[in-house]
C-alpha cells in the first residue's frame, strides 16, 4: 500500500515539474485523434524543425532571464542580422566572413544594450524596447524595404539541409540545449548567473564579478540570436523583414511555460525546448484542422495561462499531497 502511495506522489511531482511536457503529450494525443496527418513522421519532423529557431533563441534567453536580465530587442536584432548576412551573401563575400560579421553584430548588439543598462543603471525592459526600434529601423534602412533574396547554397543548407535524414537545425538545437544545460547546472559560471538572478547584491558580496558576467551572458545570447537568424534566413532562402516582430514575446512565453520564472534565480533548459515544441504543436495542429490562423494567437494565450496556473497551483497541490503522506507514515 505504502509503496503505491509513494509512487503516486512521485508521478505527480514529476508531472508538475514537467507540466509543459504533460501538456504537450495531452495536446499531441488529442491532435493525433483529431487529424490523421498529425502523427506522421514527416509532420513530426516538420514540427520539431519549425520549433528550432524559437528554441535556439529560448535556450539563450533561459540563461538571460534566470540571471536577472531582460531583453526585448532580441527579435528585432535577429531580423537585422538576417538582412545583414543575406546582403553580404548576395554581394559575394566569403561565408566565414559573413558568419563572423553576423556573430559580431549579434554579440555587439546585445553587449551594446548591456553597456547602456550597466553604465547608466537603466531598467533593461524599457531600454531594450528602445534599442529594438533602433535595430528594426536600421534593418529597414539597409534593406531598402525589400527582403534580399537569392542566397547561396551554403546558406540555404543551414536552414534546409539534412544530415542522415534529419534537418541540420534540429542537431543545432539539441547541441545548444545540451551545452546550456551543462553550462547552467555544472559550471561556476552557471551557478554565478543564477545567483545574480536570485539576489544581485548578495551575489556581488560573494565576489561575483557582476559586470563581466552580464557581458558574457549578453554575448552568449547574441551568438544564439545569430544562429537563429541564420536558420530563419536559410530556411526561407531570403531574409525575413518581419521575422522579429513577435519573436521576443514568443521566446519569453516558451521560456516561462517551460518552468523558468520571470523573477530570476531558476533556469530550466529542457523545459524551454518543450515549451517551444508546445507552441509549435498547437499552431501545427490548428493548421492541420484548418482553423483560421487568427485563432492561433488566442490558443497560444490560453496555453500560457494554463501553464502558469499549473505552475502556481500545482506546487501547492503537490506539497499538500506530500505532507499528508509524510504524516501518515509518521503516525
Amino acid at each position, binding site marked *: 500500500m505504502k509503496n503505491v502511495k509513494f509512487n503516486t506522489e512521485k508521478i505527480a511531482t514529476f508531472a508538475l515539474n514537467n507540466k509543459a511536457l504533460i501538456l504537450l503529450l495531452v495536446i499531441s494525443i488529442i491532435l493525433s485523434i483529431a487529424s490523421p496527418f498529425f502523427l506522421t513522421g514527416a509532420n513530426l519532423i516538420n514540427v520539431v524543425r519549425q520549433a528550432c529557431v524559437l528554441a535556439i533563441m529560448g535556450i539563450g534567453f533561459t540563461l538571460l532571464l534566470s540571471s536577472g536580465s531582460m531583453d526585448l530587442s532580441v527579435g528585432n536584432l535577429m531580423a537585422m542580422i538576417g538582412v545583414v548576412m543575406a546582403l553580404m551573401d548576395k554581394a559575394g563575400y566569403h561565408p566565414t566572413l559573413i558568419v563572423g560579421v553576423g556573430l559580431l553584430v549579434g554579440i555587439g548588439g546585445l553587449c551594446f544594450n548591456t553597456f547602456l543598462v550597466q553604465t547608466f543603471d537603466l531598467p533593461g525592459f524599457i531600454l531594450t524596447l528602445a534599442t529594438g526600434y533602433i535595430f528594426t529601423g536600421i534593418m529597414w534602412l539597409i534593406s531598402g524595404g525589400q527582403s534580399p533574396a537569392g542566397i547561396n547554397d551554403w546558406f540555404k543548407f543551414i536552414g534546409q539541409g539534412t544530415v542522415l535524414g534529419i534537418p541540420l537545425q534540429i542537431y543545432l538545437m539539441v547541441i545548444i540545449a545540451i551545452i546550456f544545460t551543462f553550462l547552467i547546472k*555544472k*559550471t*561556476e*559560471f552557471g*551557478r*554565478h548567473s*543564477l*545567483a545574480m*538572478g*536570485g*539576489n544581485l*547584491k*548578495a*551575489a*556581488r*558580496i*560573494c*565576489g*561575483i*564579478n557582476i559586470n563581466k558576467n552580464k557581458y558574457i551572458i549578453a554575448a552568449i545570447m547574441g551568438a544564439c540570436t545569430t544562429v537563429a537568424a541564420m536558420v530563419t534566413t536559410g530556411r526561407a532562402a531570403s531574409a525575413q523583414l518581419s521575422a522579429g516582430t513577435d519573436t521576443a514575446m514568443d521566446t519569453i512565453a516558451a521560456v516561462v511555460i517551460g518552468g523558468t520564472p520571470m*523573477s*530570476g*534565480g*531558476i533556469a530550466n533548459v529542457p523545459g524551454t525546448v518543450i515549451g517551444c515544441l508546445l507552441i509549435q504543436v498547437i499552431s501545427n495542429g490548428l493548421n492541420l484542422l484548418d482553423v483560421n490562423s487568427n485563432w492561433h494567437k488566442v490558443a497560444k494565450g490560453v496555453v500560457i495561462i494554463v501553464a502558469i496556473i499549473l505552475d502556481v497551483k500545482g506546487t501547492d497541490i503537490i*506539497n499538500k499531497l*506530500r*505532507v499528508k503522506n*509524510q*504524516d501518515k507514515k*509518521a503516525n
Partner: protein
Amino acid sequence: MKDKVLLSVKGVSKSFIGVKAVDNVNLEVMEGEVHGVVGENGAGKSTLMNLIFGMLKRDSGSIFFDGQEVNFKGPADALKAGISMIHQESSLVQQFTASENIWLGMEERFMKNGIINNRARDEATQALFDEFKLDTLKYNMLISESSIASCQMVEVIRAVAGNAKLIIMDEPTSSLSEKEVAVLFRIIRQLVEKNVAVIYISHKLDEVLTICDRVSVYRDSKYITTANVGDINRHQLVSFVVGRELNNLYPKEQSEIGETVLEVKKLTRYGKFRDVSFSLHKGEILGFAGLQGAGRSEVAECIFGIEKADEGEILIDGKSVRIKSPSNAIQHGLGMVTEDRLRSGIIAQLSVLCNMTLAKLEKYCSKGLKIINRKKEISAVDENIKTLQIKVNNRNQTIDSLSGGNQQKVIIGRWTLSTPRILILDEPTRGIDVGSKSEIHKLMGHFVKMGMSIILISSEMEEVLGMADRIIIMRDGQVVHTCAREDATQEILGSYALG
C-alpha cells in the same frame, strides 16, 4: 487585571515537506500580558505565530481569541479581529515612506470620496511618533533609505497603529542596539497600560526576563512549558531552551596574537564616518562596539569593497591595497558576513548547498572551464552543516524554507568555507539561539587559533566583551575609544557609545 484569557492555542499542528514544524502545541496569553516565546532555531516559533495570524493554515488543533474559536483565512481576518504582527523579516514596502507603510491597508480612515487625504495621514503618523517619543523618525522618510533600526521602529508603529488587542513581535530586537531596545520596551509598557497583550519572541533571554510576565518554551516543534518570569532565573531558562545545561556562552580561548595583518589609516567616507584608523593582528578578535548608525557597518563595507571610501588607506600585510569590489577583497583573503541577511545575504531561490559554496565556488571547480565537482562540493557542505549544527532536512532544499536562525548559520558557513584570513562578522549571531550562539563563538575561537583574524561588529555589548581581544568603540562615525579586553566593562562601553 491580567486574569482574562485573550488568546488560547490548543493542540495545534502544522507540517511542511519533510518536517512537522509545529506538533500539538499550546499557548495561552492573557489580556495586557507580555508573553515571551522562546526556543531554538527551527523550534517552530515563527510558524506558530503565522498560524495564529492566519498566514498559514493549521493542520489540526484549535485557536481561541477573545472568547471565540477563530479560523482566520488570512492576515486580513486576523487584523480585523485585533491581532497584528511584526514579522521576523521586514515586510515594509521599500519604495514607500514611513507614513505610507504604517497605514498600508488601513487607508480607509483617511479617505474621503475615495481619495486619501495624505496630509491627515501624515499628521496621524507624526502624532504616533510623538506619542511614543520617537523623535528620530520622520513621517516622510523613505524606507529604502532608512537604517534597519528605523525600519524596525516603523514596523512596531504599524502594528500599534491598528489598535490591536494582541501584537505579535517576532524577534523585534534582533537588529536593534541597546538604546533602541530601551525605546521598544518603553513602547511595550505604554501598550500594556492600554491593556494590549504582546507576544514577544526573542533569542535574547535577558530581554525576555526583563519585559515579559510569563514565558513559554518550545523545543523540536513541541511545547515544553510555561513559567512565570518571576519564578525562574536565566540559567534555568537557558536549560529549558537548549534542553541541557549550558555553562559558557562566551567560551573565549586565549589565542596567540601575531603580527599586523590589516591596517586601516584615516579611512573616511563623507557623511558616514571619518578618520577611522586601527590595526588587526593575526589571531586576534577585534570588537567594534557602538550604537546602530555609529558607522561600524559602513567602515566594514568600505574595507570589503562594497562601498568606496573617499579618503584613507588600507594595508594588508604592510602593503597598501586598493579594494574596489568584494571580489577584490576576497582575493586579498577577506570574508564578510553582512548585517542584512535578507537584502545582501541569502539567495532565496537557491538551495542550501548553492548558497553555502557561493563565495568560493572555484575551490570545487576544475581549472579552465570551471566545472563543478559535485562530490567535493557536497562533502564540504555536509561537513559544514554538521559542524555548524544547521537544522536542514536536505541540503538541496531552498534556503528560504529554513528558519531565520538557520539561514544565518548557512551564511556563516558560506564564509567559513571560503577560508579567509580576515573575517568580518557584522552582527553574526543575530537571531541565533543561545545554544548555537555558544557554538558559533566556539568556532570563532577555533578560527583565530588557526591563525585567522576576526573583526566582530556587534550591538550586543556582552558579545563584544566576551569574545574580543581588543575593543574599538565608535560614535557618530568616529572612533572614540580603544581598549583591551581586560580594561573593558559594560559601563565604559556604554558611556563612550552614548557620549
